[in-house]
């Protein structure tokens, strides 16, 4: 056991109890002076109820504008080994699949250049390496790229896209989330590494409306799998389920559009009224499956509260085919049209969702060349403050 430089009675309390302890994790790397000082400084925060990190000068690798976040101690005179303690975001593989060898390579690299502490993973999706000096950044980057890994995004750029487990291990995936995520990430490398945007832009790829990556809440562009034909039903298996599941109460009653009927023998779905909520499929996974005509709904503009309040994404394209052979051209085209407009007219630190609210959805749609359709709103406007254009007087041909 490594000897501890500081006494940490408060943190030691958090080694107790059954849930895995982050304090134990930190102590596992305490053979490094840097990690000893992290323990000392965090214990101080626990005593004083306040953070001792500060935001400081920008750091990064040559030619990139993101991927490394500068972190400095405000007690650097005392905890000298964490005077600099920078965060590195390393772009994760689609759906966070690894082999043991890949993980060992990453561990070896991080062992050589930093604290040995990580987050698996950050909320955007990246592998997060917590804590290195400024000097270590370029050599770390060199080792990473030599082994086939690259940094992720930070700052006002395209952030690292992420995706759900999708077709790799989920029968409900309505398109190939792993391929789409990889394709888009590779296609927009320049936008990922060099911040040219008013603020951050996040893509998240979910294979169905269960949205296991929280794309509707946590991304600017949510690509959510869906279908437009009939739910596939295996009636024999429904009957099997009916022995343990109360179909009327647990399925029909919970369907948001009440489009399912059950007569004790056959499950009848009015697919024209199904809103693809996934409830019936979730509860009867062996009997029901999404339809065969599959693609994705594209929703835009979600974000956490900063700056102007939290937003969920809203519908832009109700159904887009997501054929890998198309190279996702339609998605890329839509994205670039939005980036051009927002890039030119967005204010600093204005996410695209806030930009849309400021300029108005109708103006936004007109500029990017999308027609307004009723799927985009819960209801038409109820207030009469309409700004009319001249085109209202034109007669249709």
């Amino acid at each position, binding site marked *: 056991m490594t000897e501890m430089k500081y006494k940490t009675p408060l943190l030691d309390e958090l080694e107790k109890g059954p849930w895995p302890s982050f304090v134990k*994790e930190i102590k596992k790397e305490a053979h490094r002076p840097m990690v000893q000082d992290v323990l000392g400084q965090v214990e101080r925060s626990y005593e004083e109820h306040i953070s001792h990190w500060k935001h400081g000068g920008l750091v990064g690798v040559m030619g990139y504008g993101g991927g490394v976040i500068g972190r400095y101690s405000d007690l650097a005179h005392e905890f000298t080994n964490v005077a600099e303690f920078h965060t590195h975001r390393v772009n994760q593989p689609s759906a966070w699949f690894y082999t043991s060898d890949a993980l060992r390579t990453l561990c070896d690299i991080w062992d050589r250049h930093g604290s040995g502490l990580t987050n698996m993973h950050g909320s955007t999706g990246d592998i997060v390496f917590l804590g290195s000096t400024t000097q270590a950044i370029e050599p770390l980057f060199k080792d990473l790229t030599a082994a086939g890994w690259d940094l992720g995004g930070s700052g006002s750029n395209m952030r690292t896209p992420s995706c759900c487990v999708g077709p790799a291990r989920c029968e409900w995936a309505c398109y190939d989330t792993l391929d789409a995520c990889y394709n888009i990430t590779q296609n927009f490398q320049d936008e990922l590494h060099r911040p040219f945007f008013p603020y951050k832009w996040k893509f998240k790829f979910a294979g169905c409306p269960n949205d296991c990556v929280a794309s509707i809440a946590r991304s600017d562009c949510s690509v959510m799998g869906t279908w437009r034909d009939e739910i596939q039903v295996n009636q024999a298996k429904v009957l099997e389920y009916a022995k343990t599941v109360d179909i009327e109460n647990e399925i029909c009653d919970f369907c948001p559009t009440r489009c399912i009927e059950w007569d004790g023998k056959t499950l009848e779905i009015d697919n024209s009224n199904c809103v693809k909520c996934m409830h019936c499929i979730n509860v009867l996974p062996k009997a029901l499956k999404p339809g065969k005509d599959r693609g994705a709904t594209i929703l835009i503009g979600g974000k956490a509260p900063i700056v*102007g309040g939290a937003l969920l994404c809203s519908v832009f394209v109700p159904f887009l085919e997501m054929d890998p052979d198309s190279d996702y051209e339609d998605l890329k085209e839509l994205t670039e049209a939005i980036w051009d407009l927002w890039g030119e007219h967005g204010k600093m630190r204005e996410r695209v969702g806030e930009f849309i609210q400021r300029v108005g959805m109708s103006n936004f749609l007109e500029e990017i060349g999308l027609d307004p359709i009723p799927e985009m709103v819960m209801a038409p406007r109820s207030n009469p403050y309409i700004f009319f254009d001249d085109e209202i007087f034109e007669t249709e041909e």
Partner: protein
Amino acid sequence: MAEDRITDIGPPNYEQFLPPVIKKNYGKWDYHEILRPGVMVHVAESGDKVFTVRCGSPRLLAVTTIRKFADIADKYCDGHLRFTSRNNVEFLLSDESKIDALIAEVEEYGFPVGGMGNSISNIVHTQGWVHCHSAASDASGVVKSVMDELLPHFQNMDLPAKLRVAYACCLNMCGAVHCSDIAILGVHTRAPVIDHGDLPKMCEIPTLVASCPTGAIRPATVDGVNSVEIIEEQCMYCGNCYTVCPAVKINNAQTDGISIWVGGKVSNSRVAPKFSKLAIPFIPNNPPRWPEVVEAVINIVNVYAENARKHERMGEWIDRIGWPKFFELTGIKFTKYHIDDFKHAGETYTRTAQLRH
């Protein structure tokens, strides 16, 4: 040196990391079944099976631990594993007979198996005092304290539906907690204190003024130096100014604390995704174990578990019974802070006489 620099290669292609059984049955899965808490099987149209064992993690992991996971994956899974969107670790096996030994080994190493089905999965969270400058509270310590108590719900599937808990240590919400069944959120409650000595040296005044979403900051001359002033009534403690200027100090040991929000969700199942709503506006920081926060979360979980119908998420249950009943059942006090006074506030007022009496 520039010539051998490799850049812009992006992440490695995921295909090289997929287990053979997944490569073979990619996109051809037929159904899945949760065999017991933390263990599921996916069955392919070909009849092939892949078994998943999910275990909880503190997210902050030492390379020593990651190497241990790699060794376990070699021993039981031909070297294959993945991580989930909620920071759990999933071991992927093709051989069912190895499951028990694998579980015994990861649990022995201190990582509990569970988090599937109608359970409480891992708490997605942020950096806190371990690594962020604007944290109103620690993240890992609160999460650890809460999960120590919620563990039975991680290891069982005894809740009416899934219950997602998330934690963020300031309004930036790196963990985007705002759509969770229970969101624990660090809050600053006072406007930042300005160090007028440091400010002119460290910060650009126009950038600082522009950083404030509510326009609370304006240029001012203080004791002869060019600095800024903050109109306190206009500040909502977002800390944006501190991020661009370290001389504007948002952290305050006396007045920072934690708030609790409930009833949000992200999935589209049954009802549309929703934001979490305020339940408890402020609990003072009480490290190392934040007992008041833990107690508040447990109380909400228990009341929900006793009262919700099967399949109802927290927000669906509250919508059915109404917010007055939620406050009555949980014993949480309704205060003036619960009434929205930010943009679009009026949308949350009750504008109908449809009430439960």
